[in-house]
């Protein structure tokens, strides 16, 4: 547990920043990152010396509810309201910066990082790009991203199987987000758990490589149900694998009738234009939705 604010980060490590059991643990919150109970908030207030931090006002809208004569407290609150509160703060930061944030999810080995480096190379001359990399261990992926010239920060989750909004809040404090840019969050390779945790992103994008099998959308429906776009990657390998694209798309639309689909290969470049166009279109629609536009 963090000795400063009491947040329970477990084994999470963010580059240059050991997340647990160190007295020197620093919090880089650059926006009011009020923890969801009053004790946390008080500690934050002491720690930062900022009086602007809200004390006892909780982003998830928690109020002390009534208690009946049988000792039953009615609550009716989302179990992940704490994560949702942090996600709302992240979302607000992205909106303030007019940054399009995409949460990339897939199983391990789908080619997320290769696709990301290729995508960044195509974008970086015209659009500011930043990346948050999530893996259980190593900073290999963040190193690969930085080699493209994009800003990147690595989160290592230890035994954790997904990124959550609190980790993203910490990572954002160490990452420069330029106005109007794109932030890619590469989640931990896992087709199950990241589906449940909002990071404050604008869209989840699920990447499925054609080497994985066309029935993944119905085997792991949660992830495909919460994603706005499915990228079928490694299509240059289609002649060598038993994978029917149409059947895969039909499976995906069975669990999510609205999901968009793009087929591409980061190796041959086929379909990359469709992906880049999708990103630019989302940048426009994201900014149009913001107040004051």
């Amino acid at each position, binding site marked *: 547990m963090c000795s400063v604010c009491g947040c329970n980060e477990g084994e999470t490590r963010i580059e240059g920043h050991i997340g647990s059991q160190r007295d020197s643990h620093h919090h880089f919150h650059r926006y009011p990152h009020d923890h969801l109970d009053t004790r946390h908030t008080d500690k934050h207030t002491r720690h930062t010396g900022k009086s602007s931090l809200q004390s006892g006002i909780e982003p998830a809208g928690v109020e002390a509810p009534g*208690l009946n004569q049988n000792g*039953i407290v009615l609550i009716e609150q989302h179990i992940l309201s704490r994560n949702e509160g942090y996600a709302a703060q992240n979302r607000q930061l992205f909106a303030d910066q007019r940054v399009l944030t995409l949460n990339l999810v897939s199983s391990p080995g789908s080619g997320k990082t290769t696709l990301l480096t290729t995508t960044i190379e195509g974008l970086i001359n015209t659009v500011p790009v930043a990346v948050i990399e999530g893996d259980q261990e190593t900073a290999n992926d963040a190193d690969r991203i930085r080699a493209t010239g994009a800003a990147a920060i690595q989160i290592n989750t230890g035994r954790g199987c997904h990124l959550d909004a609190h980790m993203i809040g910490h990572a954002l404090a160490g990452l420069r987000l330029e106005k109007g840019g794109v932030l890619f969050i590469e989640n931990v390779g896992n087709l199950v758990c990241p589906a449940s945790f909002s990071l404050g992103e604008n869209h989840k994008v699920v990447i499925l490589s054609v080497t994985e099998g066309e029935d993944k959308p119905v085997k792991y*429906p949660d992830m495909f149900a919460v994603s706005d776009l499915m990228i079928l990657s490694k299509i240059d390998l289609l002649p060598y694998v038993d994978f029917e694209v149409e059947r895969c798309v039909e499976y995906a639309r069975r669990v999510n009738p609205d999901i968009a689909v793009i087929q591409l290969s980061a190796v041959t470049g086929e379909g990359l234009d469709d992906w880049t166009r999708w990103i630019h279109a989302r940048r426009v629609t994201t900014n149009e939705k913001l107040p004051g536009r």
Partner: protein
Amino acid sequence: MHELSIAQSLIQLACKYAEQHGASKVRRIQVRLGVLSGLLRPLYFCFESASKGTGCEGAVLEIEEVPLTVYCPRCDENTSPGSRYSFACPTCGTPTPRVVTGREMQLVAITLGGTAAVSLSRSSSQPTGCHA
């Protein structure tokens, strides 16, 4: 293993409300889960180990499972598809992404134990032993 994170979130939330009401223990936790959460069995499985050493240790976990209901734009009514991930109207077959019920993941209520069960005090200046 995200069910462990979710169990921990549930326990933190329950303990926080117990503390607000001056209770040291939670005796019962009532939860509402939609079938799409896929958490019914995993949560039961994780709860005991996740609650060890917290104010929720030994609490009874009661889960109400909410079935999948979708809105069919063609029939203009809510219907219940046969299977968990069949987002189509069972009457006319029209696909629909509009889920009405089935995504719930709520802490509904807790029953307090410890001091509050006796005193029903509404707040406590002494935080109790919930460390989830």
